[in-house]
């Protein structure tokens, strides 16, 4: 009995001194994992032409200048399309961590557009987390070009179009992010009576990060009920994002005509199969309008 008690005492002494030399931090830190959000799935709030699953951070403004040149297969006399350019200038604002808005104007049809993008679910790991992000984008477009045939009886709403989009995206790894975006586009005025006012489409976007500052992006829409008569095609863009500190350059090739959802879904007459592709670039410059307060 005595021996047992001695043994217990000795054991106790040894273990308690072992405890003292243990990793101090391990005694303090929580055992449970914390919820961690998956950020930076895309370098920009646009994949190339479509809304991405990323939002601007609150207090920032993104000044975006988008260019699309003429068809590369116009040949050397048109300098492979670079002689012709259309552009869209846009201002996007991060309002809260889940909300951003933006406005823009395209030279094509002198069209204005505006949108609002909201994130309902943010991809995260850890307890009570969802493995994907879910966002919605709603936008509207307004053409201000004079009607080509003034004798017809047009009304103002004929200039308007609307789009509604759900974005489901997941950052699979540091390098790979993918997203799907079911889209409904409504035009108050369709080109012919045979064409639907409501167009249904699904967009897919993805990126493969090649290095810290370069990624390969793909952006494609499949349209379920395209216009019957005008020979338009599904828009597809492929390109690279280059991040240079303050700017993100998105250099790409695309068949899409125009730089807002209404135009590229309904007026893309170019066909990749025929080589009707254009070079384009998006320039994104982020400004911090409202600085976060830091206390030392």
């Amino acid at each position, binding site marked *: 009995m*005595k021996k047992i008690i001695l043994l217990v005492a000795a054991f106790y002494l040894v273990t308690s001194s072992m*405890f003292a030399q243990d990793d*101090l931090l391990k005694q*303090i830190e929580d055992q449970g994992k914390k919820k961690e959000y998956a950020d930076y799935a895309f370098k920009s709030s646009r994949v190339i032409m479509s809304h991405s699953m990323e939002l601007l*951070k609150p207090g920032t403004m993104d000044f975006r200048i988008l260019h699309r040149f003429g068809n590369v297969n116009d040949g050397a006399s048109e300098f492979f399309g670079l002689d012709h350019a259309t552009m869209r200038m846009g201002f996007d604002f991060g309002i809260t961590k889940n909300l951003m808005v933006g406005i823009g104007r395209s030279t094509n049809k002198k069209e204005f557009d505006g949108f609002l993008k909201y994130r309902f679910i943010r991809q995260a790991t850890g307890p009570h987390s969802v493995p994907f992000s879910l966002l919605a984008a709603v936008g509207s477009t307004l053409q201000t070009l004079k009607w080509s045939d003034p004798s017809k009886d047009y009304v103002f709403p004929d200039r308007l179009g609307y789009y509604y989009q759900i974005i489901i995206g997941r950052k699979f790894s540091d390098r790979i992010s993918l997203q799907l975006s079911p889209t409904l586009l409504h035009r108050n005025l369709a080109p012919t009576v045979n064409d639907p006012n409501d167009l249904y489409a699904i967009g897919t976007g993805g990126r493969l990060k090649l290095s*810290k500052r370069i990624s390969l992006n793909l952006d494609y829409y499949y349209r379920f009920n395209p216009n019957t008569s005008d020979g338009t095609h599904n828009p597809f863009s492929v390109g690279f994002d280059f991040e240079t500190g303050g700017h993100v350059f998105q250099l790409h090739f695309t068949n899409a005509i125009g730089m807002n959802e209404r135009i590229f879904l309904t007026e893309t007459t170019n066909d990749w199969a025929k080589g009707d592709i254009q070079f384009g670039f998006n320039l994104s410059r982020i400004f911090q309008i409202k600085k*976060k307060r*830091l206390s*030392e």
Partner: protein
Amino acid sequence: MKKISLTIIVFVTVCSVLEAQDKFYTKTGKIFFECTKSPLEKIEATNKSSTCVLDIKTGLLQFAVLMRGFEFQRALMQEHFNENYVESSKFPKSDFKGEISNNNEINYTKDGEYIAKVKGKLQLHGQTQDVDAIGKIIIKQGRVMANARFAILLSDYNIRIPSLVSDKLSNSVNIIIDCNLEPFKD
């Protein structure tokens, strides 16, 4: 004999309970860093949720900090910090394990300010380097405050500065630590 053994057990148990009070800790330690080179663009960030543990008996001192917890004034800077420089998805945590080498000169039971010489290993961006710093321990009404100010070099931790921003970003990073420690109870 039996009684002696029992006394030892009781004594050791009491000791190990007391021992827990040799440790002071915080989970809201502040770490500030600054690596500005050009006066036009301040590059600085603060983390207010670092963990710090100090064993006043042995002088052992440890820190841990989540890289994603650093907040910048500019969101884009914060993105670049996480994505391009410290690669916080690959190396989410930085930690320091060391000791106060002149611990016996600090009287933790008496209010006052004491110089603390700290020596240890700092792990950042997957690299570990020896770090020396002169800090201050302030004892005030049973609380222990630990402050330190030191500098590290980004190149020691395999963090490359692209030539494009070499005129804005300094290779030398000034770090200020400010922790308010309280007694740790199991």
